[in-house]
């Protein structure tokens, strides 16, 4: 078997084991939350009778491990169960929400990743001169700004002062792609601002590291143009650390954008998860947790594989 295939197989196996462990952790975590589902659903309007009825109906009286294995069995059969709170089918609910989240993450990534890498390359080309300082200064400023502040500032300027965009990014089935893109313009802008600096700085640092190597000096002595040296000779050797940071940011775009979702009223996974945590809707929390964990683990495996493929020494081990 080719060593790369074996390696990928190993990673996938470990990833699955990790997912299983995560599902146990999530379950234990939800068990430790104060209060119970029935109380959380009925809130202040709970009475003893309605509480007892609701608990019985939801099977909350069974021991924890029974409920865990019942759920795990369902998941392995592609059934995420129904939400305890409103009886909705979790799989179809999550499918909509996840599609929205991926839609937003996709457009943010497709702008942010090339932009960050190009800015990193430009920063190296003009290192320690004004373009480098300007790029670093601006991106570090935007990453330091909390997301909701950036969101509110953009909202105030571009929706209230000048009515260029809409402050509410709610998208729903039946909207055309153009309408959807218009609706998500502001959250995409905020997300780009937030993830830009991390990737840009890593690109810059990794390439600068490589720039000290002897073969770069050779390239310079060959008389190549500085930008060609950076893009053709330095960058391919700096791909591994950059890919890792890019994946980390992509994972963040999928699982960590709840604040942006709230500010722009975007119906993604984050708000969905938060609502269900507050209501102790354990099946939904577990499903979301599992999906988020899968996204993290999957993107990290992808990063590893790309790093290996990008490195001839790892690609062809002796």
């Amino acid at each position, binding site marked *: 078997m080719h060593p790369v295939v074996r390696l990928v197989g190993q990673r996938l196996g470990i990833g699955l084991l990790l997912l299983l462990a995560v599902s146990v952790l999530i379950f234990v975590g939800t068990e430790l939350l*104060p*209060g119970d589902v029935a*109380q959380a659903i009925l809130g202040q309007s709970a009475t003893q009778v309605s509480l007892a009825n609701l608990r019985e109906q939801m099977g909350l009286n069974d021991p924890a491990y029974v409920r865990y294995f019942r759920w795990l069995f369902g998941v392995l059969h592609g059934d995420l169960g129904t939400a305890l709170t409103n009886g909705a089918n979790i799989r179809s609910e999550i499918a909509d929400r996840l599609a929205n989240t991926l839609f937003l993450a996709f457009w943010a990534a497709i702008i942010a990743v090339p932009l960050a890498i190009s800015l990193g390359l430009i920063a190296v080309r003009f290192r320690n001169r004004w373009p480098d300082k300007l790029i670093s200064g601006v991106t570090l400023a935007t990453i330091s700004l909390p997301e909701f502040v950036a969101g509110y500032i953009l*909202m105030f300027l571009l929706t209230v002062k000048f009515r260029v965009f809409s402050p*509410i990014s709610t998208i729903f089935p039946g909207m055309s792609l153009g309408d959807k893109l218009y609706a998500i313009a502001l959250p995409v802008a905020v997300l780009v601002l937030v993830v830009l600096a991390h990737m840009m700085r890593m690109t810059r640092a990794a390439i600068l590291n490589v720039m000290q190597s002897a073969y770069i000096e050779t390239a310079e002595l060959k008389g190549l143009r500085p930008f060609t040296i950076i893009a053709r000779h330095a960058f391919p050797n700096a791909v591994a650390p950059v890919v890792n940071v890019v994946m980390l940011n992509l994972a963040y775009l999928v699982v960590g954008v709840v604040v942006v979702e709230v500010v722009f009223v975007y119906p993604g996974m984050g*708000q969905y998860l938060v609502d269900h945590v507050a209501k102790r809707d354990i099946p939904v929390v577990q499903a979301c947790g599992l999906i988020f964990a899968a996204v993290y683990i999957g993107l990290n495996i992808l990063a590893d594989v790309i790093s290996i493929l990008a490195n001839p020494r790892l690609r062809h081990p002796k």
Partner: protein
Amino acid sequence: MNDELARLIGFIDAGGMSRRGFLTRTAAFGATAALATGLVGGAAYAGEPKKGGILRMGVGGGESTDTLDPALAANKVTGAANRQWGDELVTMSPDGKVEPRLAESFESNADATQWSFKIREGVKFHDGSTMTADDVVATFKRHSDEKTKSGAAGIMKGIKDIKADGSTVIITTDGGNADLPYLLSDYHLIIQPKGGVDKPDAAIGTGPYKLKSAQAGVRYEFERNADDWDQKRGYYDGVEILVINDSTARNSALQAGQVDVINSVDPKVAKLLSKAPGAKVSAVAGRGHYVFIMHCDTAPFDNNDVRLALKYSIPRKELVDKILDGYGSLGNDIPINKAYPFFDEALKQRPYDLEKAAEHYKKSGHDGSPIELIVADTAFPGAVDAATLWQASCQKAGIPLTIKKVPDDGYWSDVWNVKPFCASYWEGRPVQDQMYSIAYLSTAEWNDTRFKNADFDKLLLEGRSELDPAKRKEIYAKMAEILWSEGGVIVPMFNDFIDAYSDKIDGWIEDPNFELMGGKVSHHTWFA
């Protein structure tokens, strides 16, 4: 009365009183809100209703866990959504009276133990079936069934029997209940075909708008019900409810013209928003109030002097000014205010009096150990700040109040109605009997102050079956007096409902029953 009206109108012209102040004062001497509003330049009734347009509402307070089953409606968004497609038998009018809706009329026997509701004829559900007395009976049975999860289960508890007799529904209660029609205006009790037993969240009702699409926690879409039984409402072609939980996002959506009306405006920005171009702010004094609750059976709160010391030490005026930014009114340690039908003005307002507080505290013989108040911001907006202000004034009176701030998560299950001293809120109920019955009767499940007073209980039951308004008023005055002097509840303030709407909307009425015109903004307004 006419002289009094003339005086008040003069006041407004002179700029001495807001329209809202005018309404509250006229209500006090019995002029109806409609009459009063008509007198003030008739602004709200300026144009004739026009049909057309889509009303877009930005409503906060929804979650992706929501369902359209009216029995489980528990937040502002589901409340607003259900108002579009459903009707109750009766509803509360803006002037606090019961108005027949799907019931044409109602009456009771002499001791208020049996009520009969004549069901309106020719009303059709959205699915084309005709509404009958049987549907009403089935609906009420679903909410009062022993296995029900309905939020209205508590108020249906006193009902012994429900039956249909031709086109009349006859309801028999345990002991008399003069307030039954008020109770049936509860927002959970929307009449559904066959009681909605088979598909409770189908959103099939008799309302002015039909459901087109629903995404919990995101968006609801409605279209006009052309066959609505009541042609004097529902002027829009459709209604769109966008769930916007973030207060700032709601404000900017209104300012940017993306929605036409929003609810729950933060009092701190209400004044600014009212100056924004194109936006109008409506603040209405309702029955909702913020409370600090002490368990009367737990030390040190079992000592009435400790309770009184705390009651005198709370800076009510400062709390209304700083926590509500003036959008509210002083509370008087009873859960009742002017918005209630049998409110008695005679009870004097408890002053902010640190000397008296210190005096009661000394008399209580309390050992000086810290008195711990548990708060979280979920108790009411600004609860933690309110507690801090209160603590400062307690220090001046020598009362060792300490604050324990806890997370919002789990507050309603682990602190409220469990711990002896914490912050909370009540949305209020349409009538005294109901408010007192759910939280101040000895045996009430939500007796969150553990207040047990035999005289109070006796008066409550007496008042419930009393049909003579004068006598009822007297009874409720006595009860207020007892609660005021011995109760475990501290009511520092009543909060206003604050909504904001676009100036394109005409026909806005201030309705003290709930925000968004008692939920009926899409029924009774139109685009000018």
